[in-house]
């Protein structure tokens, strides 16, 4: 249930309680009843107070939800630290590639492969939405430059969010990689698919982990082997300033492009996973807070209503008794 709706329900319930306690007519009660279906059933025409049983049920369900959100927060918090270490360690793998081959998100290529990375599970705040937003902007830019676009989507959430609008651009969808702890093997299996589909440049969009409360949507660019060769010829990267032993430049750059895809993918998955945990921790904390606020208000409502019912019954008994006394 959304927070706003819950609060509206509470407001209605309180309004009704106050309307009846000052002797409001049932017609006014009837008006408010139509606005909220849940508590309305507990509050039929002519009944003065909100049903205690229903409030009690609501309190129970709210506290159960709070237990779940608290547990989810604890789980995310305990997984965060190892994931963070992994992500930060993996940065050391990609920086040398950027130093050697450069980061060229604006490289003009005939074909562009978009790779939005998202989580497989929800309830983790806005991180997946951010990736999708950035990807959509990149798609527009690529369309303007008349580059042919295809997409390899990683993670179930981005698939769900993007399928309706740009589903026809999908080439491959890779999900459930987060089911097991991330390994370089998994990352490189995904990267292999990406490298296969990459016939120009691949733009990998993910959330870079900054701190437990801050994640930056980031674009990592990987060119194909041929594009790296072109940019080496145009002196856009420093490859030719090194003396290397081994196969010719084309083959070497092909190997490097593939390995870079793997390294970038590993880094991006690790960072995104860490951001997911951080974001989940944060959103579950605020959910728990909302639940406890709600519980407080419901408890107040419950106690007030109970008190009001007792008072009314007492008045009835006393006035009945005094009426009998008068009759004597």
């Amino acid at each position, binding site marked *: 249930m959304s927070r706003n709706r819950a609060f509206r329900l509470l407001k209605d319930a309180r309004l009704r309680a106050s309307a009846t306690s000052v002797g409001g007519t049932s017609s006014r009660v009837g008006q408010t009843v139509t606005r909220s279906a849940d508590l309305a059933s507990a509050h039929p025409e002519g009944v003065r107070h909100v049903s205690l049983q229903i409030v009690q049920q609501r309190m129970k369900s709210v506290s159960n939800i709070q237990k779940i959100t608290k547990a989810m927060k604890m789980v995310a918090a305990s997984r965060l630290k190892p994931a963070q270490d992994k992500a930060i360690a993996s940065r050391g793998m990609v920086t040398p590639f950027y130093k050697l081959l450069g980061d060229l998100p604006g490289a003009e290529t005939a074909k562009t492969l978009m790779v939005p990375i998202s989580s497989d599970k929800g309830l983790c705040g806005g991180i997946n939405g951010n990736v999708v937003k950035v990807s959509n902007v990149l798609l527009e830019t690529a369309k303007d430059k008349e580059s042919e676009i295809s997409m390899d989507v990683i993670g179930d959430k981005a698939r769900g969010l993007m399928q309706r609008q740009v589903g*026809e*651009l999908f080439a491959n969808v890779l999900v*459930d*990689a987060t089911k097991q702890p991330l390994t370089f093997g*998994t990352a490189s299996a995904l990267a*292999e698919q990406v490298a296969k589909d990459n016939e120009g440049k691949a733009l990998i969009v993910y959330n870079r982990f900054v701190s437990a409360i801050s994640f930056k949507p980031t674009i990592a660019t990987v060119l194909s082997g041929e594009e790296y060769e072109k940019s080496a010829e145009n002196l856009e990267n420093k490859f030719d300033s090194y003396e290397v032993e*081994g*196969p010719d430049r084309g083959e070497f750059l092909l190997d490097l492009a*593939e390995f870079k895809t793997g390294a970038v993918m590993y880094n991006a998955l690790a960072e995104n996973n860490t951001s997911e945990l951080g974001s989940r921790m944060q959103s579950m904390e605020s959910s728990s807070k909302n639940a406890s606020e709600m519980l407080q208000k419901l408890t107040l409502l419950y106690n007030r209503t109970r008190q009001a019912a007792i008072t009314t019954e007492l008045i009835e008994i006393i006035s009945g008794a005094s009426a009998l006394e008068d009759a004597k």
Partner: protein
Amino acid sequence: MSAAANSAAYWRIAGMSYLKYANACAEIVRGALKEPHLSKARARDAVYFKATKYVKGSPEAAVITEVIPAEIPK
């Protein structure tokens, strides 16, 4: 040309990509470890994901790729 370069050509001819080759090598290196490092490293052999190919916006059958780390003989 160095030996590494020659072998690089061979695995390309055999249809392997660099990443496949690198991972195959890594698996062998991990397998050469001794306990207690072996069981820790073996866990990193694991691969799991589900791939679905899309043609014109509609999904085809999903393919699950799973590599379960080999059991360590006692």
